[in-house]
């Protein structure tokens, strides 16, 4: 199983990760791991429902009431940068 350079770039973009130094290692590891998955095609899963969870619970619901869990200050306490009660981030749009 080969991963092309373009495919790897696209994956990195989707994952919001960049790989500078050890790109070859990670491509190599990914190829080895994905190759292993090929054996799964041997198993016939026609008409088998996928299992997304294993609890057998149905409609685990609660009342849709609003409540305050954390105050604004508590939330901001871990933010890397904040100002006037709001989280500050680098600019989103380039100056045009």
């Amino acid at each position, binding site marked *: 199983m080969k991963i092309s350079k373009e495919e790897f770039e696209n994956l990195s973009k989707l994952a919001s990760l960049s790989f500078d130094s050890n790109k070859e290692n990670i491509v190599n590891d990914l190829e080895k791991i994905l190759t292993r998955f090929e*054996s*799964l095609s041997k198993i016939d899963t026609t008409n088998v429902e996928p299992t997304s969870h294993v609890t057998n619970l149905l409609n685990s619901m609660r009342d849709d009431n609003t409540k305050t869990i954390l105050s604004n200050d508590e939330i901001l306490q871990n933010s890397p940068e904040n100002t006037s009660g709001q989280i500050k981030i680098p600019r989103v749009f380039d100056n045009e």
Partner: protein
Amino acid sequence: MNKLLALSTTELSNLISSKKISSEELVYESLNHIKENDLEINSFITVLENESLEKAKNLDKKLSNNEIDHKFLTGIPIMLKDNISTKGIKTTAASKILENYVSPYDSFVTKKILSNNGIIIGKGNLDEFAMGSSNETSFFGPVKNPWDTNRVPGGSSGGPAAAVSAGFVSCSLGSDTGGSIRQPASLCGVTGMKPTYGTVSRYGLIAFASSLDQIGPFARTAEDCGNILNIISGKDNNDSTSYEKDFNNFNSKINEDIKGLKIGIPKEYLENVDSEIKSILEKSIKEFENLGAIVEEINLPLTEYCMDIYYIIAPSEASSNLSRYDGVKYGYRSATKENSRSSLVDSRSEGFGDEVKRRIMIGTYTLSAGYYDAYYKKAQQIRTLVVDEFNNAFKDFDVLLAPTSPTTAFKINEKTNDPIKMYQSDLCTIPVNIAGLPAISIPAGFDNNLPVGIQIIGPQNGDQKVIQFAHKFQENTEWHLKHPKI
């Protein structure tokens, strides 16, 4: 090790309840032992020294004035794996990206421990975001195995396992996504249990793979594990997958004998296992037969596919869960100031370690357009077949018995360059998470002075039976009473 520190949580609880020892005395001994030996073992990321002593003194006073009732964990020091949120205390998941994160809230289990007057003595080291089988991916350095400090303690809950093994605490909480409680329990010679999925709320557990993650105890005995599960289990409105059991005592079967009950030995679990571990399993089988259990071999042919479907399902869920680390709301933010996109990418790339990035990339691939059906959906379909296979097995058997780990503790750095070899450390534990079953690892022997564990697996909500079998084994063997020389 001070002899107090070699006792089980249940024994310590009785000593505190009968006022033969004080909580302060116990916490003091724990802290001394940690100070002397944890620089080498590295099982703690945070030690709460002053807070623990203060709390112990307070509890002692309240107990002697009869202001509070004694409960199982009252005055007992406990370590929580550092992916379990603790209000006002650093909760790092052993990642650079959360190095300075102080949780603003308590997890469900933290609240339960505190309301039972347990003493959180510190936070345990782990593989970064619980991704690993050797505790070598921690940003805070590897944990050493107390039986041989050149070797790994297993992972991902290496800190909680090593801390119980070394006698720093009598019990701790870990999390198990593919074996992260049971495998390190086996490698460190302690008892560790992953309950049925849904038994313990995941609220406040830093998410790795949500359909597999489950919190559970490490301790010296199966009875300890049951007593701790009695405290931390239950329905929580903040976790829609948690539910109330139709029983309220995990230990209610421990006095029933196992005569005539049936144990299945799944042959496939023995295929890639070291011969010494097989022979220890065989001796354990004899022990169970002496106790009157009926032991038969069975086949679970889908076992060989479980590792592969795990490495689709877990990274897929992880890639989604870990998208929240963006350097905006909390956690590490790169110094890059160019624009928010480069800040996002650089914060993640500088903040996550190699193994976490590898798994995010696998998960991104298996969930991406064009591959979803071939990988994620296919894995979830095979998951259905694995669940059916186990359900059929439990029509004939009360529990299954298998090795916990294919090897004993391996050397530090032995497997770090080969991810697939590392992933194979969890061959015997992964199927249990795939099907959401309860399983316990208990000490059953030694190979070259390194502990070997065996795993007892039960049907969904068969947690009491799992504990019953483990307890009977421990009543008749002494492997769980061995301690490393530390």
